[in-house]
C-alpha cells in the first residue's frame, strides 16, 4: 500500500478516546522526539510547552456517576481557512500543499502570538524562557529537530523530522513515494493502547481514512469549518456531545 506523496497526501489522525488510558507515553515521546525542553521552574499549565497535551475531561456528574476520558490534543492541522496561517504577519506558518501539514517556521516568528489567540484548539505554545536542559542532556537531544528559541511560538507538526527522514530513506532506495508505515509520528508510535492511528486521509484504503468515516467519529469544533485533520472516536454520547467545545477551555 504505497502512497504517492506528490499526489497530495492529507496526513491525519484518528484518536480513539475509549482506548486512551491517559498514560502520558505520547506526551513524553513527543517531547523527546521534538526536543521540547523541560519546564522552567516557574512554568505552569498556561506557560508550559506541550505540543501534545492530554486533557482529562469529565462528564460533570457527581460520584459515582462520574465518568472521564482523556483527550490527546495536538495541532488539529486545519485544512481550510487555517486560522493561524491567516493571522501570522510574518508568514511563519505555512500549509504544505503536498502533505496538508501545517508547519511552523520559528526563524520567521516574531512572537506576536496572534496565532495562539487565533487557534481555537489552544494547541500553540510560546517560548517564554530559553530552552534549557540540565547540563549534559543537550548531547542527548534528537539531532533531527532544531530547538526553538525564546520568544517564538511552536506547535505539533506531525513530527516533521520523521517525514524528512522517511523521504530521505525512500529517495535512497530509489523511490519517490513514502510507504505508509515508514512515516509515523512519535505519539502514534508510542501509544501502548494503539489509540492513535496515523496515515493518509487521501488514501481511501488506509486505516485512518476508514476510521475517520466510522460511526461515532467526530472532530472538535467542526462548526468553525476549519476542516481539522485530527479526528476523535468515542462510543460514549456525552463525549461526542462535547465536540462543539475545545477540551482546552
Amino acid at each position, binding site marked *: 500500500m504505497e502512497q504517492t506523496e506528490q499526489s497530495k497526501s492529507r496526513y491525519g489522525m484518528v484518536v480513539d478516546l475509549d482506548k486512551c488510558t491517559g498514560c502520558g507515553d505520547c*506526551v513524553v515521546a513527543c517531547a523527546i522526539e521534538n526536543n521540547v525542553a523541560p*519546564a522552567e521552574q516557574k*512554568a505552569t*499549565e498556561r506557560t508550559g510547552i506541550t505540543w501534545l497535551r492530554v486533557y482529562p475531561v469529565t462528564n460533570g456528574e457527581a*460520584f459515582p456517576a462520574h*465518568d472521564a476520558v482523556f483527550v490527546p490534543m495536538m495541532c488539529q492541522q486545519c485544512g481550510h481557512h487555517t486560522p493561524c496561517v491567516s493571522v501570522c504577519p510574518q508568514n511563519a506558518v505555512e500549509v504544505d500543499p503536498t502533505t496538508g501539514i501545517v508547519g511552523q517556521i520559528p526563524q520567521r516568528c516574531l512572537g506576536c502570538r496572534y496565532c495562539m489567540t487565533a487557534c481555537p484548539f489552544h494547541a500553540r505554545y510560546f517560548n517564554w524562557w530559553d530552552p534549557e536542559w540540565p547540563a549534559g542532556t*543537550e548531547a*542527548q537531544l534528537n539531532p533531527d529537530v532544531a530547538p526553538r*528559541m525564546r520568544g517564538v511560538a511552536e506547535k505539533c507538526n506531525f513530527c516533521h523530522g520523521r517525514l524528512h527522514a522517511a523521504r530521505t530513506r525512500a529517495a535512497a532506495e530509489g523511490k519517490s513515494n513514502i510507504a505508509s508505515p515508514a512515516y509515523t509520528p512519535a505519539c502514534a508510535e508510542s501509544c*501502548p493502547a494503539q489509540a492513535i492511528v496515523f496515515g493518509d486521509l487521501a488514501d481511501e484504503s488506509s486505516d485512518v481514512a476508514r476510521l475517520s468515516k466510522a460511526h461515532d467519529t467526530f472532530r472538535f469544533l467542526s462548526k468553525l469549518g476549519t476542516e481539522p485533520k485530527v479526528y476523535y472516536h468515542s462510543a460514549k454520547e456525552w463525549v461526542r456531545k462535547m465536540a462543539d467545545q475545545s477540551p482546552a477551555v
Partner: protein
Amino acid sequence: MNITRRELLTLAGGSVLGTLFTPIPWKLLDDSAIWTQNWSRIPALRHGPVSYRLSACPLCPGGCALNVRCVQGRPVSLGAVPEHPVSNGVICATAYAGHHLATHPLRLHQPYAFNGKTGESTLLPMNEADIASRLGGQVRKIAQSPSDGVIAILDQRPGRAISAFYQEFLAGFPGSHYVVAPGADDPTLSALSALCDFKDLVPSYDFENARTILSFGAPLLDGWGTPGRMYAALHNRAQKGRTLIQAEGVHSRTALQADTWLPLMAGTEAAFALAVGHVIIQEGRYPALVARHVRNFPEYAELTRAFAPERVAQVCGLSAEQIIATARAIASGPSIVISGGNPAGGPFDTGTETAIAALNVLSGNVGCSGGVLLRAAVPAPVHAPKPAVSLATIPDHSIKVLILDAAASGNTYPLALLTRKLVRQDAVVVQFSAFLSSQSGAADFILPVPAPFESLEEVQSPAGADRAFFALSSPFMSASDKAVDPVAFLSRVATAAGLAIPQAASTEVLLKQRSEAIFASHRGVVTGPAGTRMQMKDTVSADDVWKALTDGGYWIDDSTRQPASIPSALPAAISAGQQAALSGTPSLPEGTFRLMPFGWRGATMTAAVAPVMSKLFQESNLRALGGRLHINPATAAACGLADGESARITTAAGTLTMPVVVDASVMPGLLHAAVGPVPNKTATATRPESEGILALCSLQDDGSWRFTEASMGKA
C-alpha cells in the same frame, strides 16, 4: 529662525511616520529574529553516525525491552521493541525519558555525609574509603557485641544476583536481617504463598487465559507489572471473552477502562471479599475438590457466614446484587482476584490481603490455567543462605547499621518504617543511590552508584510474570569515576572490619555467574539481538549466553510448572479490623476522613524522574502533582475548601498543609493524597525532598499504611 514647539513635534511625528516607509524598522525586526535563533542559549545538536542497540529498562522491575537510538554513541531516544515476548512493543512514559536521568539535577556524583539534622541538613563531600573505614569500625563492633544492635540490608529489588550477595554478606553476622522493601513483592501472591505450599516454585498470574479478573484497586492498566503484557491481556477484552471488574473508591485510570467499576468504600475490602466468599459457598459455586482438599474449608465457610451480602452492602457502598454478581462472575470460570498494591499506598493490611487472596483458593484457580500458575525461579549460582524478612517482623530499635539498596523499584514507603527500627543512638544508615531521593533523608552516608544505563544491571521477571525471564540492561554511557559498586564497597567494609566475609570483585562478576547458572540449568531459550535463538539444552557455551545477554538479548524459561497438587488452606479467622468493618465502624466519626496516599509507579520520589516528565505533572494536569490532595466536591464543601486552596491535614503522626484539588473521581470522605514529583528543579539539590504525606500515615503492626484516620480543615 525660531522653532516652535509645534514645529518640533511635527518634525518628530513626521520622522517616525516616514521611518515606517523605510526598510529600517523591518530590517531591525528581521535581524532580531535571526539573532535570537543564533544566540548562545540555543543548544548545539550533536550530529554523527547513528546506531541502534538493544537493551532492557532498569527503571522498575517491569522487564521492558528497549531499542536505543544513539548518535556518536550517545543515546538520543529510547523506544520499544515490537514483538518482544515480555513487553509486547510497549514502554512507559518514564522509560521514554530514561536516557535523560544520567544528567538529572539530583544526580549524585560523589559520596556524601549529612552535615546536621535531617531536614535542615546539607551534604558534606566525602570519599568512599573514609566511609568504608567508618562503616567497617561499626560492623566490627556489631560482630563483637550483637546485643548492642544488628546489621540489616534493605533490598528494594529482591531476587537479583546482588541480593544473593547481600544475603551471603549478612550470613556472617548473628541476628542480622536481609529485608525486602515494602511493596517489592506482589501482596496477593505473598498472601497466597502463606496459604499455599508452593515449595520452590513462584506463583504468577495467567491473565492471558483468565475469564474474569477482580481487582481491588490494582493499577493494572496504569503501570502494574509489565505494561505491555497488561495492555495485550486487557485490551479488546470483549473479543477474548474476558471481564475486568475494578473495585475501589476512586474512579482511577484502570476503573475507567474496566467493564465494571464497583465504587467500594475504602477500608471495607476485606468485608467485601468475605461477602464474595459467602456467596460462592452459599450457592455452592466452588469446586468439589476445594471442599475436600483445602484445609480450613469448614472454618472459612463458618467465618463467611456472618458476611451476608445484604449485611456487607450496608457498609461497603455497594448493593447486595453487585456483590452477588461479582461472586458469580469469578466462580463462573478461570479467574484472578488481585489487590496489586499501590506504588505509594502499599499493600492492604495482612488480614485484608489474606481475605482477597483466599478467593483464588476458594474458586479453585490456584494451579489452573487462567488463574494463579506456578513457575520456576531464575537460576541462581548459589542458594541464598539468609532468608528474607519484612520490616514489620524486625523489633523496633534493634538495627545499628542499615544499608539501603536504593535500586529503582517504582514504589515508595514511609521512612518511619525504617527509622523506628534503628537503635536510638549511634545508628548508621548508608544508602546506595544514583540520585538524591526522599529516602536519602534517612541516610547518614550516601554512596553514588551508576545511574541507569551506565552499568550492567539485571532485569528479571516482574511480579506476576508467567515465566521466568532474565535480561541485562546494557550500559550505553560511561559511569563516573566516583561511582560506587555496592559489591566492591561491602567487600572493602569487610576488609576494614577484619572479618572473613565472602567477597566478590564486582556486580558484573555476579551477573556473569548468574548467566553461567542459566546456561548450566539447561532450561529455556536465549534470544540474541538479531533474533537468533539458542536452546540452553543444545550445545552452546556459557560465553555465548553471556555475549547474547550483554548485546541486548534475553532468556525466557520453557514453560510454567504445575505440580499435581498444591497443598492449600483458607483463612480460619478474621482480624478485629474486618470485624469492625462489618459492624459499620468504617463510617468514621464526624469530621474525620480516611487518608489514602497514592502514586504512579516509577514516579514516587524514591528515584528520580527525568526533568522532561514535567510535561505530565507541571505543564499539564494529566498526572497528579506530588503534594496535592484530591478530594470529592462534597468533601471540599463540607470543609469549606475550594479548588487550589490549602487544607490542613492532621493525623496522629502530625499536621501537614497541602493544596486541594477538587476531583469528582474520588469518593466522598476519602483524602486521596498524591505522592510524586514536585515541580521541576534545574538547580543542583543539596538536601533531600521531604516525604510529604507519607510522614502522616499511621503504620500498622504488620507494616501497612494504606489508610489513616485524619481530620481536615482550611489552612
